[in-house]
């Protein structure tokens, strides 16, 4: 061996330039094809990584919701609801291309607004958003053949409330099928992350989309509630927490609207003793900490077979220690900032409660920036089914480790939550993976991988994880009168 190396290979900060995002001082609602001042309160959007105010946004009041829904109704009746599928596809293709052309701008803007690592925004969020439009552009003229009978009709105006973890991608996943089916859209982005949705309005304009077909209303949860409850909205789509989703469903019951909700999850990775260890470790880490764990289908629980648990957890710690936590604008960063300081507090409390209930805590030895809403990835070992951290949605960079002895026990433990969104199964034995996948009560099961999203594959949950499906032909159903 040689003497210790004085200069181990260092990674230089590879900072993306904030100017790429073309930030403006003020953003306004996009209603009826125009950016107009809203009548709601002015609020600001903050960069959670630095605490800096990015821009001011005029919010939407009841009257703006009215105007937007009316514009969408007019667009539906006047044009969009009756043009041919081929014509609708033309616009969707244009939007997809514009998203691709402006992907760096939008990726950086998304990073500034959400705190997610810029590499993820530009290499995951944006390409996927464009892919969703491309996929549904293909469906627009083939609805007769999607399996819903001849000439399935669009519903009319859809009101959509989109959360803050993947603002533009989740918008694309919901707006693309709605437009492909002939519905018009009023979308309300999260008040914490409205910027890319408003630039999306601009893209609709650039694409020459008939005015009123897509409307974007920045605002708070009240604007969201009044949008979904508006009598002109035929289809209410809510994506967010289970708590709010249940309230939405209750409030809208019996109003003659279709309600689609995509809610929380308490995802799990099941690792059998014969799994490919290195890849399983990598994927468990990715599954738990991708997008700071702020993913509805995050694998926030790990169920590992008892016989390999000790070795697996040791590898897990090694791999977690490699995660680079810090400035989201650095292309080397793996874990960026959480959405807000309230999130950091909520998660710290959750971890403390886990420790108080008997779990052992380990946090990666990273020193995240002091300003900004960061939390170092945290591992809780010795977690039991009864502990609160195993029972509820984590939605942050916290991974709980539980063990199991038999495949049946693994399935029972995995399913023992009110949710049922996503699971990963790790085994080199195909029959075992297939059996486990069949037994699990979740909407999505990944085998020997995790967090693979594709517009062709339906995605959605069971139980308290919601009732909608996005993606593929199944994703059309919610937007058609079938």
């Amino acid at each position, binding site marked *: 061996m040689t003497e210790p190396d004085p200069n181990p290979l260092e990674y230089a900060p590879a900072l993306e330039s904030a100017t790429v995002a073309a930030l403006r001082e003020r953003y306004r609602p996009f209603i009826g094809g125009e950016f107009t001042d809203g009548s709601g309160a002015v609020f600001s959007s903050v960069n959670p990584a630095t605490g800096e105010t990015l821009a001011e946004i005029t919010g939407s009041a009841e009257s703006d919701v009215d105007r937007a829904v009316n514009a969408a109704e007019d667009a539906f009746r006047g044009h969009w609801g009756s043009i041919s599928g081929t014509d609708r596809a033309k616009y969707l293709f244009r939007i997809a291309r514009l998203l691709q052309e402006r992907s760096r701008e939008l990726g950086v803007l998304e990073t500034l607004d959400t705190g997610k690592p810029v590499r993820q925004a530009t290499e995951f969020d944006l390409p996927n958003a464009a892919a969703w439009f491309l996929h549904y552009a293909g469906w627009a003229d083939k609805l007769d053949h999607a399996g819903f009978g001849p000439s399935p009709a669009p519903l009319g105006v859809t009101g959509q409330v989109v959360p803050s973890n993947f603002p533009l991608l989740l918008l694309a996943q919901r707006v693309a099928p709605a437009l492909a089916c002939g519905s018009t859209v009023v979308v309300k982005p999260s008040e914490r992350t409205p910027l890319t949705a408003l630039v999306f309005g601009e893209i609709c304009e650039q694409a020459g989309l008939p005015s009123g077909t897509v409307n974007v209303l920045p605002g708070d949860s009240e604007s969201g509630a009044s949008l979904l409850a508006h009598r002109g909205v035929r289809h209410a789509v809510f994506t967010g927490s289970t708590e709010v989703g249940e309230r939405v469903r209750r409030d809208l019951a019996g109003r003659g609207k279709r309600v689609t909700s995509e809610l929380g999850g308490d995802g799990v990775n099941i690792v059998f003793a014969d799994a490919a260890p*290195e890849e399983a470790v*990598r994927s468990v880490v990715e599954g738990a900490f991708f997008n700071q764990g702020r993913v509805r289908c995050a694998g926030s629980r790990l169920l590992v077979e008892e016989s390999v648990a000790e070795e697996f957890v040791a590898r897990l710690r090694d791999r977690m220690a490699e995660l680079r936590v810090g400035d989201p604008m650095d292309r080397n960063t793996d874990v960026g900032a959480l959405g807000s300081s309230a999130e950091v507090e909520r998660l710290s409390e959750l971890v403390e409660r886990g420790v108080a209930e008997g779990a052992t805590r380990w946090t990666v030895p990273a020193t995240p920036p002091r300003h900004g809403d960061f939390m170092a990835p945290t591992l809780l070992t010795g977690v039991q089914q009864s502990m609160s951290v195993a029972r509820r949605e984590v939605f942050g960079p916290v991974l709980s480790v539980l063990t199991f002895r038999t495949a049946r026990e693994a399935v029972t433990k995995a399913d023992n939550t009110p949710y049922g969104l996503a699971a990963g199964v790790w085994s080199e034995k195909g029959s075992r993976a297939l059996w486990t996948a069949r037994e699990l009560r979740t909407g999505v099961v990944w085998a020997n991988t995790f967090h693979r999203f594709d517009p062709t594959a339906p995605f959605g949950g069971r139980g308290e994880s919601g009732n909608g499906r996005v993606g593929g032909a199944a994703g059309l159903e919610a937007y058609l009168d079938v």
Partner: protein
Amino acid sequence: MADSPSSSPPETRPPGELAEATRDEAALTRFLRGLPGIDAVGLEQRAAALAGRAVKGEAKLRAIDRAVGMVDLTTLEGADNASKVRALAAKARTPDSRFPDVPRVAALCVYPDLVTEAVTALRGSGVGVASVATAFPSGRSTPRAKLAEVELAVESGADEVDMVIDRGAFLAGEYGRVFDEIEQVRAACGPAHLKVILETGELGGYDNVWRASWLALLAGADFVKTSTGKVSPAATLPVTHVLLRAVREWRDRTGQSRGVKPAGGIRTTKDAIRYLVAVREVAGPDWLTPELFRFGASGLLNDLLMQRETQLHGHYSGPDQVTVDL
């Protein structure tokens, strides 16, 4: 195995639990087949993700110098002769005459019949002489001829021997035969370092690359090397990850450090830095030394030199500023 005609020096015997794996062919087969699997999708994802790490500025300049010092400058053509070897030897000693602070390369890699020439040309330079052997690149010859080739290369003064494994035997599941051959070559090497070329492009998948890596390490390889450069695909990042993971686990289990050499297809500085990042992340920073990591390449060196100048002067100088060594 136990009854192999020439036994290897005791220090190359794997310690403890791993010694059990080399007791006889059945034990070796059990061990190799019992190794945990490699998941191709996950492996390739990780390799791609790590390739995105940025090394810039000062760190890049140091990485370039480090990479230059790890190059096994290679010429393995039918047209090779003494003059070609002398030209490359001069390049190996002084890669860039305009910048005397550029480190010399690690070794010059040639065919066995040119070892004497290379040794003469490199005397006193500190640059090693590596010789391919065992009927490179196919490995298809009789065991006696292969061993004789190794002995001749070492007698001619080679410091390092790059052997190829018998892929035919490996793919037929005759692990014992492959093991014996490596062990015999190891013995014939004497003090020379042994690099074992797995020719991963012919092994048909990462699981086999993983098994072959362990097989070579168990049989006493100082280095595991991906490819001859004569088969496509040659070195790739995911395959190199597998080798790096093997030497890392080998050290975790035995305390011994073994090296890795990707060869073939690494032509640019960008590629080289991606490999260095993989070394740092998969094996560990300890492996960032020519003693434990080499690049088998011919064209890479000039690109490293051009990029080095770019880092120093802030602009490209063009390919005419570096020497073409024919």
